[in-house]
């Protein structure tokens, strides 16, 4: 008997013509790790919300969901609450109470457990997840990754049989996301917990999963082992989300077993050893003669008078018409550097100059807006109206332009960011990638010469990242400069011209992207990690594929 069994489920939201789910069949066996993926609007979230009566959306439904052989609506709510654990997307918004210990106890209180039982369960969870030292902290003082870990621990305290997760890592930075996914994998392997995970970081979850379900337009497209699904999706738009070794294997029309991890990929790539080296990647353009747009010279900064220096003599030059990516770990000072360039903070020593002029000379709003456009980490914070078009007009209206110029500007921006079909929607209803583009559109309305982006790929799936990367490339071709702060090695490897690595408040390396990644051992793309030793200069998937096909 399957733990969860979806039989011929068809569901449509009220007042929508097309059903969100049509004829979905899915069986989840005890102890399985199932990954559900698909583009935005493919119905994956709608499907997993049917696994719990309390979350089932309203609308027209046919078909049935069985939990341990019993129709779900006949399973009483107490059993559902404790046995079917659910973790959602937004880490902060799932938290109900103010203290970590109270949050962990919240579900247990609802189940009506005795005090002694609760003490024991909390103790168990705190030691399993390593939360002992946080127990007395306020939940809002935790980072996004810690908050999501707390959400997981509070659900696990209720001893669920199956854990259902709806894109739990989409709001986390890559480090925290990896840690979270490993925690899930550990639960699955050590405790035999059944996991149903909706996720778009497929490169990370493919090696963990027993089965991958691909959805499109409310239907199950494929439902098979990761390797076979990888094979099947090779020509599907979703392929950009699959693990890098898989993409290289399919790109180079490889034979044999498809590799899923870098380790397997290296073993497979060894067959090209020695045959290579006629494929040389295109030389990078020298940046020394390009005019400098942004420059930081010996910049020192700290937040509090007696605090530690966050930036310690930062020197940085951003050439015009390029994508410059500043990388580094959390707390390394990346976002601080961005706040100095945007004028939100001022260095206490050293100089920030924009087009050779001191940052201080730009009074008030003249810097932010006209020369610099800043895209905040959370694009949602830019929206103030309830329709995308109104939101854009809201900003455009006050600009000193004639009506024709305004219309032309709007048309240009909408075309650049591909917002045509979305103008009538509420900005909060857009998917992560669409929100990012709508926010970028708003910044572009001001026609800034330099764009500052803070973690632009956070929460984006592979396809949206590709769209964003191409959009940024188009903008630089038009003479704009893009300076971004990012954790995303793959994205920077594919699209940035120059990369800098910030560590301990200083720039420890600044090189053209290709040289940068080819020179690093750990801080580099998966494609480079895999091809190192065979094609040392290859950084992106395309590089490796090209090198493979040319050497055959």
């Amino acid at each position: 008997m399957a733990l969860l069994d979806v039989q011929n489920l068809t569901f449509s939201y009220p007042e929508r013509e097309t059903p969100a789910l049509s004829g979905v069949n899915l069986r989840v066996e005890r102890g399985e790790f199932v990954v559900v993926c698909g583009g935005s609007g493919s119905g994956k979230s709608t499907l997993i919300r049917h696994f719990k009566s309390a979350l089932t959306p309203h609308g027209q439904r046919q078909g049935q969901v069985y939990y341990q052989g019993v129709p779900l609506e006949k399973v009483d709510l107490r059993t559902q609450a404790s046995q079917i654990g659910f973790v959602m997307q937004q880490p902060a918004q799932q938290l109900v109470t103010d203290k970590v210990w109270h949050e962990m106890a919240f579900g247990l209180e609802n189940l009506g457990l005795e005090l002694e039982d609760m003490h024991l369960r909390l103790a168990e969870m705190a030691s399993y997840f390593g939360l002992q030292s946080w127990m007395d902290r306020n939940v809002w003082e935790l980072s996004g990754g810690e908050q999501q870990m707390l959400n997981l621990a509070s659900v696990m305290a209720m001893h669920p049989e199956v854990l259902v997760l709806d894109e739990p890592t989409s709001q986390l930075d890559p480090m925290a996301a990896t840690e979270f996914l490993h925690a899930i994998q550990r639960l699955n392997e050590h405790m035999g917990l059944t996991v149903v995970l909706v996720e778009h970081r497929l490169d990370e979850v493919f090696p963990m999963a027993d089965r991958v379900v691909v959805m499109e337009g409310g239907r199950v497209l494929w439902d098979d082992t990761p390797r076979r699904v990888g094979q099947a999706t090779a020509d599907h738009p979703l392929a950009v989300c699959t693990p890098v070794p898989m993409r290289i294997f399919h790109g180079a029309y490889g034979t044999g077993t498809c590799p899923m991890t870098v380790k397997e990929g290296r073993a497979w790539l060894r067959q090209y050893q020695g045959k290579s080296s006629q494929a040389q990647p295109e030389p990078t353009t020298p940046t020394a003669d390009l005019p400098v747009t942004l420059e930081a010279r010996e910049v020192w900064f700290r937040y509090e008078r007696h605090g530690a220096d966050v930036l310690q003599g930062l020197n940085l030059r951003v050439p015009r018409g390029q994508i410059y990516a500043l990388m580094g770990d959390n707390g390394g000072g990346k976002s601080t550097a961005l706040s100095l360039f945007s004028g939100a903070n001022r260095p206490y020593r050293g100089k920030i100059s924009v087009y050779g002029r001191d940052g201080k000379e730009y009074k008030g709003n003249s810097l932010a807006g006209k020369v610099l456009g800043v895209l905040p980490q959370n694009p949602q914070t830019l929206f103030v109206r309830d329709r995308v078009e109104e939101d854009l007009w809201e900003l455009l209206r006050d600009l000193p332009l004639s009506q024709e110029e305004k219309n032309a500007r709007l048309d240009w921006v909408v075309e650049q960011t591909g917002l045509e079909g979305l103008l009538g929607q509420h900005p909060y209803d857009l998917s992560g990638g669409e929100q990012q583009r709508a926010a970028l559109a708003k910044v572009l309305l001001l026609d800034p010469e330099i764009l500052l982006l803070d973690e632009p790929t956070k929460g984006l799936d592979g396809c949206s990242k590709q769209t964003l990367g191409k959009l940024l490339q188009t903008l630089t071709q038009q003479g704009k400069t893009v300076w971004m702060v990012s954790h995303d090695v793959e994205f920077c490897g594919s699209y940035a011209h120059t990369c800098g690595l910030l560590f301990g408040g200083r720039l420890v390396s600044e090189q053209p992207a290709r040289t940068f990644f080819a020179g690093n051992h750990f801080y580099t793309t998966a494609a480079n990690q895999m091809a190192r030793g065979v094609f040392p200069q290859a950084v992106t998937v395309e590089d490796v594929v090209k090198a493979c096909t040319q050497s055959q």
Partner: protein
Amino acid sequence: MKDAFARCHPWLNLVFYLWVMGITIFCMHPVLLGLSGVAACGYLLRLRGWKGLGRGCALALPVMVLSAVINPLFSHQGMTVLGYLPSGNPVTLESLLYGLCTGGMMGVMVLWCITWAQVMTSDKIIYLCGKGFPALSLLISMVLRFLPHFTAQTQRVMEAQRCVGRDMRQGSVWQRLHQGGRVLSILVTWSLETSVDTADSMKARGYGLPGRTQYHRYRWDLRSTLWLAGMMGCGIAVLAGVATKELDMRYAPLWRMNEATVVACVCYGLYGVLCAVPLILNGVEDWKWRYWMCKI
């Protein structure tokens, strides 16, 4: 938490404050006020150091002085006339005393309230409410969680708006108001959106099932019972003194305080002990530590 009293069971904390504050307010007796004031100062010093005590007094003293000055100007009851105002109304010793005591009472209450804020953390209040009003207790916890979440989002939205040239700190009053309204309206939308997620998370974790219990991490032990009994004993003794007029203070028409009989002195002593409970707890603890350190 370093303070020994703050680490006690919330019920002990609450009972202590009810007795001390209740007696301070309802028996406006100069000696009791003095004892209460000294103990409050002592505990504040222990909790926040000289700087904290100074700040507390800077808040409490003006209240006291102001009340002592203003009361005789407007109240002319009492038979001991000290002099006459330019308006011809008498200034009496009784109204001066009454003003001083009312002010003293308010000042002492201010000092106790400062320590209350330090001792009665949100956790304890939530626990205490949970006994009688479980829904209210959860609500307090949720509000305490939501407020910082909301202010943080407000900060982020304002910062993002500044980056597209919509700075709330610049422009005419009208422009600022207009911009403020826009930010507020989107924050309302955001709050609604957020609360939908929170509600889902609560439902998913079984909120609304009958028979909800309350988790807490406080332990009631024999020591708590003993301290509670002691505090109740002291409090009841002082009340008995008041009821039997052994402790008595009259302000009008002629001020008169009880004689310092043996019973009255015992009552003073007991109230002093009651007010000093936090200090005694801390003192005993410090002494024990020092004793054991010496042994080692």
